[in-house]
């Protein structure tokens, strides 16, 4: 078990900057997700930690040891690849035992570890099969078992669930979380799926254009996004943003007056779809579409000409064209600078 310290790592491919001086610390036993849209540098960062890519500047420390110049095999890591990368010419048993075999472990220990991890991932009946005879979900399990069998200090995962179908992904997600919690392995997990990151991670680091924009616990990221990008990226449906004008420390929305940390000038009001209630008064909301989702109804409409989505009770009786009234929860509203998109702290 060990912590990971990524210290001002910078990487560019030719003229393209993939990572611009990124720093991140993952505590011992912690599960951190690297979350961001495609091309944000999250996979590059993971590959640098793995030693599959070399940074131009900066260091990577694992368990207090500088591993920047070490090859992958000397870093005490294990990795689960996006396409699983299960060896097709070895059966499941040999795949799971591969890492230990390469490390020159005793036969008895390898057999014991293979049995143990296979049991953990429900692979016992498949031990003598070849990858070609397995389904995608089973191959994924083999890849995870192969990584856990070496009892790594650090586990790196590169979108391990993205190739599974939706139902299986949900199932594997819960299973993975249970297994990793039990193993207590320090984990760095790359994903572009925010629900996956929210569900699995202790902390999430959000990457955008080669920068880490915000690193925090999922609930805090959700409630207090550091930038407009984070608010829009996390949450489904995403946070709403209304361009407004503050005057005298307040913002007027219809009949509502909300206290604003900035005295005057243009500001962005960020509001989660579930943080507004429908009522008799408040800001006017012209309903355009209503989508009954079962557990709730999703309303899409306009407030002062700006698009907005609101989550309402499932029995909401309204039809497109109606004008409803919304009351945002003042405690839940976030304010952002209209030009930089960064959160304004009171």
């Amino acid at each position: 078990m060990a912590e990971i310290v990524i210290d001002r790592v910078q990487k560019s491919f030719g003229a393209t900057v993939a990572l611009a001086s990124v720093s991140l610390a993952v505590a011992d036993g912690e599960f951190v997700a690297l979350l961001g849209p495609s091309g944000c540098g999250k996979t590059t960062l993971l590959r640098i930690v793995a030693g599959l890519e070399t940074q131009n500047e900066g260091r990577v420390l694992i368990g207090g040891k500088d591993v920047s110049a070490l090859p992958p095999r000397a870093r005490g890591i294990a990795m689960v690849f996006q396409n699983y990368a299960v060896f097709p010419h070895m059966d499941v048993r040999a795949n799971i035992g591969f890492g230990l075999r390469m490390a020159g472990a005793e036969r008895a220990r390898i057999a014991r570890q293979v049995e143990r991890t296979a049991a953990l991932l429900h692979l016992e009946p498949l031990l003598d099969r070849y990858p070609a005879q397995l389904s995608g979900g089973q191959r994924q399990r083999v890849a995870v078992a192969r990584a856990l069998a070496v009892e790594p200090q650090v586990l790196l995962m590169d979108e391990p669930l993205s190739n599974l179908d939706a139902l299986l992904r949900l199932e594997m997600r819960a299973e993975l979380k249970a297994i990793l919690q039990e193993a207590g392995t320090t984990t760095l997990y790359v994903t572009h799926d925010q629900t996956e990151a929210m569900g699995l991670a202790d902390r999430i680091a959000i990457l955008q254009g080669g920068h880490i924009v915000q690193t925090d616990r999922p609930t805090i990221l959700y409630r207090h996004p550091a930038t407009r990008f984070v608010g829009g990226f996390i949450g489904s449906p995403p946070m709403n943003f209304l361009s407004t004008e503050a005057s005298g420390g307040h913002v007027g929305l219809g009949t509502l007056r909300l206290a604003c940390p900035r005295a005057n000038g243009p500001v962005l009001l960020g509001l989660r779809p579930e943080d507004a209630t429908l009522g008799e008064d408040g800001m006017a909301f012209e309903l355009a579409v209503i989508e009954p989702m079962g557990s709730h109804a999703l309303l899409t409409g306009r407030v002062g000409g700006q698009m907005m989505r609101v989550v309402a009770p499932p029995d909401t009786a309204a039809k497109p064209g109606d004008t409803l009234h919304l009351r945002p929860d003042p405690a839940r509203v976030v304010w952002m600078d209209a030009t930089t998109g960064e959160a304004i702290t009171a």
Partner: protein
Amino acid sequence: MTARRLFFLAGVVTLCAWVLVPLYLIALAATGGSGVVHAWPKPFLPTGTLAATLAPLARFLSIAGVWPALLTSVETALVCVAISLALGLPAGYALARFRFRGAVLFRVLVLMTRAFPVAILALPLAVTFIRLGLYDTPVGVGLMHTALALPFTILVSASLFQAIPAELEEASWVFGCSRLGAFRHVVMPLALPGIAAAATFAFVISWNEVFAASVLTVRHRTLTAYLLAILPESPLNVQFTGAFLLVIPSVLFIFLVRRRLFSIWGIANR
């Protein structure tokens, strides 16, 4: 049956006949003795007993010098295979895995070596080989044949390695392999059938090559070169027997690795 289908079948029959009829006639003449070579119409199957059929083959193999020449051919082909693989596999791996300046140019240059006629290569080589003491040796001819086989080995192994996902190699690095270990434990086992096919192909190229072998040897001739030298004075049926025995290994090898070669060359065969 539609005209389209008829056309297709006619094409198949023509192509098969193109290859099989000469082989059949060679086999017939090789086993039938002098009578069959000149007979018309030819019998559909060899006439005599099995012993009589095989007798010309045995007689041919008892010609003085055939066995040593056969041995030289095998030695030469093995030299060609060994050097082709030793140089071709790393080159193919580099082409498949690394992006380097001039990779495309390198590919073209590799193919360009085949643009030179063998005669142009063989004659100056004879002079050089005499100076180096490689003249009239299996190693010398093997080197020459390597020049012919290497482009195929390089390009074939490049596409072989390309077909192996880089992630598999990376996974083996992560799980404790050095680059060399990854090659041994992961890349090599996966590429082995293809490498065997490439080796077979190099063997056949060397086995069939006659011009350079004739120019570069005097007394230690390969089988093809030896036969070329002695057969013009032999009766026709003996020539056919020689041709038949020469063609068998090539046909057999190519048949064994056909599916591999097809998939390597990107020809859909299913």
